[in-house]
């Protein structure tokens, strides 16, 4: 046990990259992939960066690969969409140094806007996918992915899911393997993807795919476990662990490579079992292919395409077991909320009072969509707030958006919001864009970006000024205001929304969780002065609750002293306390 450590799936991937001799890693934070980069940064041998978005991260990794070193780009599943442009083409080019994209899917939508399956993208892009099922495999498969990449001259996707990324298990550590840089030689036919060259490369891709289908049958990452052959199960990744738990006596083909499928291996396994089941979370990717070969199998007839699986689900569906499980109690839901002292709450309180609709974006401030704030009307994807507001204006005219704003965070603005703002300027939009600048990437746990002045490695660098950036586009109305100055913010929003010109309002107030220092100011309620009007409760601060007589109380273990409630109280019943 001496060299075994307990490791998060994501930490194990980082370790795998280290041991595989990776030299460059690029990523944009996104749950459940963020901790890969946060762990890679511990290894001085790897250059690691936060890129502004996943497309850039992928291109950085591709460049490193072309130069002859092993490189990796990590992202969540929706980040794969952003990175898909380079992905589809690097699939034609192949690699020099090994190139791996880590794609983290989120069945069950713990922290995402959709439940898409990366394997579908990989099939379209014709890129091989391998899938581990625990922390040890996360490390081992990462190393295997780089070997595969170089041997078959292809980018490789390492697919994980939330349950793997955020589970810990034992991992045996090995030393780093120093890989000599491969020499770079100009090869335009391979690296310049214009039609004539790409046409030829497409043939190579097809050949490679066929070779992988055949060779994949012998990859050590696949595992065949013959037990009772009445029931045979094809599975991979996390669902494998549920299968082992639920049906320890069944025969199992655990696929390590899930695209392209090792056909002969599957056909052989299918021929040896009486009834074949396919257990895969999300889309029936394995199932549809296996059935298309004329093999009889049962899959989504008894399983869902939604959410996560479990051993109990398999016990019921395949084992036909009657489980004696108590009904869950009726308990009110506890959805995530903005923290006490969050500057977003103040902004939304002002917008709500002004009856303004917000086209929203991806981040903590998405929570402005839920009661009691209910200000955010739409949330689509990174950067869509600004462009969708522009679309509304072009459809309905500028007066239609006089009670609308676009709301976007600083990190999301740097990710892809910036393109949408350029478009708004170019095509003469008149919308109001609010950049809720809390100086960090909040939702994913506080990562830096180009406008914070710090890199992933912790170096201090010049911060890109968001106000100067906006002004440089020719935007005349760029206003900075403190999110907690509700009076000034109200005035500014009214003024800017009324203008027939594009405006950017930047509320520059740091995330309340950024400062680790103890709070020095709190607020307390005076039940004598409280008129029970409920104004202070409008923003939905979790620190404020009611006493039995209807007066309010402020929880001193939660209050971060933001002052919003005191600003809303017309009766002076909420007072500042210096600690």
């Amino acid at each position, binding site marked *: 046990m001496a060299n075994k450590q307990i490791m998060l799936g994501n930490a194990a991937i980082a370790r795998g990259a280290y041991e595989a001799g990776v030299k460059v890693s690029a990523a944009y934070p996104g749950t459940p992939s963020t901790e890969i980069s946060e762990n890679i940064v511990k290894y001085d041998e790897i250059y690691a960066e936060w890129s502004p978005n996943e497309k850039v991260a992928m291109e950085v990794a591709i460049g490193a690969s072309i130069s002859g070193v092993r490189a990796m780009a990590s992202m969540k599943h929706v980040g794969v969409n952003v990175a898909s442009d380079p992905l589809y083409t690097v699939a034609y080019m192949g690699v020099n140094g090994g190139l791996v994209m880590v794609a983290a899917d989120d069945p069950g939508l713990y922290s995402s806007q959709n439940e898409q399956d990366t394997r579908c993208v990989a099939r379209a892009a014709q890129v091989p996918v391998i899938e581990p099922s625990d922390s040890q495999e996360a490390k081992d498969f990462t190393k295997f992915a780089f070997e595969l990449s170089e041997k078959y001259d292809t980018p490789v996707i390492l697919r994980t899911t939330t349950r793997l990324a955020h589970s810990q298990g034992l991992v045996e550590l090995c030393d780093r393997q120093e890989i000599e840089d491969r020499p770079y030689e100009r090869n335009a036919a391979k690296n310049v993807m214009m039609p004539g060259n790409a046409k030829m490369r497409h043939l190579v891709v097809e050949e490679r795919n066929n070779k992988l289908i055949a060779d994949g049958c012998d990859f050590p990452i696949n595992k065949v476990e013959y037990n009772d052959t009445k029931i045979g199960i094809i599975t991979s990744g996390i669902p494998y662990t549920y299968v082992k738990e639920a049906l320890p006596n069944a025969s199992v083909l655990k696929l390590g490579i899930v695209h392209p499928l090792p056909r002969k291996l599957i056909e052989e396994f299918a021929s040896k079992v009486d009834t074949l089941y396919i257990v895969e979370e999300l889309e029936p990717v394995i199932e549809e292919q296996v059935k298309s070969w004329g093999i009889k199998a049962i899959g989504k007839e008894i399983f869902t395409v939604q959410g996560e699986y479990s051993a109990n689900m398999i016990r019921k569906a395949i084992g036909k077991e009657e489980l004696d499980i108590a009904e869950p109690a009726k308990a009110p839901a*506890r959805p995530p*909320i903005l923290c006490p002292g969050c500057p977003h709450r103040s902004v939304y309180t002002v917008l709500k009072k002004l009856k303004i609709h917000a086209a929203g974006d991806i981040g903590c401030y998405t929570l402005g969509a839920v*009661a009691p704030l209910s200000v955010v009307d739409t949330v689509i994807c990174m950067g869509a707030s600004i462009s969708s507001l522009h679309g509304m204006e072009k459809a309905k005219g500028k007066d239609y958006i006089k009670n609308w704003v676009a709301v976007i965070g600083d990190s999301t603005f740097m990710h892809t919001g910036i393109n949408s703002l350029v478009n708004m300027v170019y095509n003469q939009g008149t919308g109001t864009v609010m950049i809720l600048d809390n100086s960090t990437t909040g939702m994913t746990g506080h990562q830096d970006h180009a406008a914070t002045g710090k890199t992933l490695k912790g170096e201090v660098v010049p911060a890109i000024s968001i106000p100067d950036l906006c002004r440089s586009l020719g935007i005349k109305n760029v206003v900075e205001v403190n999110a907690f100055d509700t009076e000034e913010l109200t005035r500014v929003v009214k003024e800017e929304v009324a203008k027939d010109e594009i405006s950017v309002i930047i509320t520059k107030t740091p995330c309340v969780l950024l400062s680790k220092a103890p709070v020095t100011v709190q607020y307390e309620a005076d039940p004598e002065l409280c008129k029970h009007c409920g104004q202070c409760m409008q923003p939905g601060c979790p620190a404020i609750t009611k006493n039995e007589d209807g007066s309010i109380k402020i929880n001193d273990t939660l209050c971060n002293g933001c002052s919003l409630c005191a600003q809303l109280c017309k009766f002076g019943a909420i007072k500042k306390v210096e600690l």
Partner: protein
Amino acid sequence: MITKNIMIVGVGGQGTLLTSRILGGMTLHAGYDVKLSEVHGMAQRGGSVVTYVRYGENVAEAIVEEGQADVIIAFEQLEALRYAHFLKKDGVMIINDVKIDPMPVVIGAAKYPENIIENLKKDHKIITVDAAKEAKKLGNNRVFNIIVLGIAAQHMDFSKEDWMEVIEKTVPPKTIEINKKAFEVGFNIK
């Protein structure tokens, strides 16, 4: 050994991750195979959170399923109620006697259920503690979770000395003493 199933439930921000880190470290220290599953990201923002810890000779899945938990550590009453059906028939649940209103209750769209502890006691073995009060006595409000862990430790098969060794290795150096004291308090609550 049959795999042992532990759950830690609470409200995002209550320190479930530190508690599970100590527990995970303990099982590894004792030479078991172990898997832990956590919640990161959006739910950590004040939402309902659950951590699963499973240890034994050979652990396959990382989650504990309904009806399988030997011990549930609940840092909040409503979360205790939400996950009670995960408890085994002879399982035990340690409940930190605190109520935190979820947003639907704060805005009046739902009611916080009454008599949670009394009702759970009808069907389950329940131990309650006002850990915040005990932590205040130690002069540090934040170590309430380690007090609760100390109580739960009475229902697991590791020695006190081993727990102390793991706490020393896991928590930030400055907080070792206070966390060890907190564990001791919990371990001695009958």
